[in-house]
């Protein structure tokens, strides 16, 4: 019989090794799944993980990597802060949608004026919208003890309906011949978020994601608030005696992750998506949860994990085109990845020992 013996501190080696093992296991299990569905497993895995970077159409798909990774990294950086302290914001998808709407609202109100101030104002409005949407579960938890998990998640469904209402009602393009959806911000230079360097895919969201990684790294490793967050996560009682206020942490981490998600939504609406539509949310907010875990809640890990999951999005689209794999393949892969990661994680926290020694 084997037995699990808890480690006094998490193993650094396994902390780095388990995400790698999880990715490999996902490829194997995914291959088996493809074989069952009657596809060539090797070709499918290569299409998803290799071809977007080095395949024949790589010059088109490579810039997409940064476009998809930026929102994931931006959102996950914020989520990881709360997750470290045991505060579960799983409604980032809603904060993303609301940020996109409030940011776009500034642009639509300013139309057709031109001005250097418009885009920065949109970014601030997007962050503020996401912050406000994230503060709802924070305040309801602090004042009434309501679960932030359930409230933040319920608000995703509310936000989706707000987006639909906006697209069909208040924000509908008056020159859109009756079609739902707002004006296209890509055609409004002062409000658009274009590619900054040709061929890289990098827009302002990529810059923001890079800044978010740096800032959260400094916050977690160098700032007293980061210390409080880590303390609250690993020893809540001790943290409280040390003067860490749980309510402040809840408001801080839900507000911060909401603001970052809101910014991600704004960069998407003003850039790749271009307009407010009823399907504004595309699941980045949920995938970012996987990014945060796969990146071990560490800024550098999140950077790498965000790039990897962006790759699965692009590879999934490619596999859909070339191999007729269903669109949901990516979602299944992402779910499997999280399963394997959580499973292998037992190795970081426990030693495996033979019983009877």
């Amino acid at each position, binding site marked *: 019989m084997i037995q*699990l013996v808890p480690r006094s501190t998490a193993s650094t080696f396994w902390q780095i090794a388990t995400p790698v093992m999880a990715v490999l296991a996902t490829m194997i299990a995914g291959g088996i799944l493809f074989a069952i569905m009657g596809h060539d497993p090797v070709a499918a895995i290569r299409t998803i993980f290799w071809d977007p970077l080095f395949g024949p159409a790589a010059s088109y798909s490579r810039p997409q990597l940064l476009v998809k990774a930026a929102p994931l990294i931006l959102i996950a950086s914020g989520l990881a802060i709360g997750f470290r302290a045991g505060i579960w914001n799983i409604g980032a998808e809603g904060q993303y949608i609301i940020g996109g709407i409030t940011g776009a609202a500034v642009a639509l109100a300013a139309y057709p004026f031109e001005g250097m101030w418009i885009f920065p104002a949109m970014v601030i409005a997007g962050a503020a919208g996401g912050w406000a949407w994230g503060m709802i579960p924070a305040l309801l938890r602090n004042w009434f*003890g*309501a679960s932030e998990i*359930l409230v933040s*998640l*319920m608000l995703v469904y509310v936000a989706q309906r707000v987006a639909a209402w906006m697209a069909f009602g208040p924000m509908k393009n008056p020159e859109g011949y009756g079609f739902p959806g707002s004006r296209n911000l890509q055609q409004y230079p002062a409000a658009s978020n274009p590619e900054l360097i040709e061929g890289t895919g990098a827009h302002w969201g990529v810059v923001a994601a890079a800044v978010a990684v740096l800032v959260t790294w400094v916050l977690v490793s160098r700032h007293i608030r980061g210390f409080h967050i880590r303390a609250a996560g690993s020893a809540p009682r001790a943290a409280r005696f040390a003067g860490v206020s749980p309510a402040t942490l809840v408001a801080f981490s839900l507000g911060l992750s909401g603001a970052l998600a809101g910014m991600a939504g704004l960069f998407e609406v003003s850039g790749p998506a271009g307009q407010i539509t009823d399907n504004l949310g595309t699941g980045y907010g949920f995938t970012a949860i*996987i990014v945060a875990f796969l990146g071990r809640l560490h800024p550098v890990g999140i950077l790498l994990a965000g790039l990897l999951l962006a790759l699965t999005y692009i590879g999934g689209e490619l596999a859909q085109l070339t191999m007729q794999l269903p669109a*949901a393949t990516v*979602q299944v892969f992402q779910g499997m990845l999280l399963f394997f990661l959580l499973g292998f994680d037992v190795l970081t926290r426990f030693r495996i020992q033979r019983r009877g020694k």
Partner: protein
Amino acid sequence: MIDPLSIFLLLLSASTPILFAALGELVAERAGILNLGVEGMMIAGALAGFAAAYATGNPFLGFLVAALAGAAISLLYTVLTQLFLANQVASGLALTLFGLGLAAMFGKPFEGVKAPPMPIGPLGINWIVWLGLAMVPAIWWFMNRTRRGLILRAVGENHDAAHALGYDVRATRAAAIAFGGAMAGVGGAFISIATVLQWTEGMTAGAGWIALAIVVFSNWTAFGVLAGAWLFGGVTVLQLRLQAAGVNVPVQLLSMAPYLATIIVLVMISARQKYSRKAGGAAPGSLGNNFHALR
């Protein structure tokens, strides 16, 4: 004119998916398991049940398969949390994301086909609605009047004490998770087989999450779950009635009602539990914590 009886029948039907899922989660939570994978297990049941009902032409067989599918997918959660001692919140989220993806992937061939008709039960009410109503006293009786129910609650209140008394914490929890999965599966299948009558991607639309909120609302009692499910069903029916009556409010705003009502109810109940004398409300003592036996 709106006939109160027909409204009540609609309410019963609208509340049944949530009732099943929430009763299953209630049993799991009383065993100390916080499974956030309800939505994933429901969608798995919705698809598997629909596929079986469509293939065999027998809706009841569909519900049976849905229960098995829900229990089967919940095994992943059991392995993660009971064997590998993974965090329950993260594992539940993983189950939901995986279930939604898996159902979307395998559901494609079933889009656009119709479910076989459900035979009508006594008083013109669907048999599965009756089953759901019968489950409420059955679960109450099991938890409060049987030895196994007592053990289940002991495991949920204090797993160390239950272990010291010689009860198998892991086996009890594994059974509770599987039961929760089967119930969520049936609840999901009710949406696809008996309400919408077809399969569409993501058709559970947050019902699993609402079920989780209703367990909190119920104060962890079976009859409380029934009250919560009816409250939710009432809001849903009212919202649909207002849409049909053509009130001057955008449809998108009306359809927010069930989610907003869930938040409001959750806040009210949480506040009562927070400010009542009994610290922590009625939540099981070991809820959400994994058990690791050193001896």
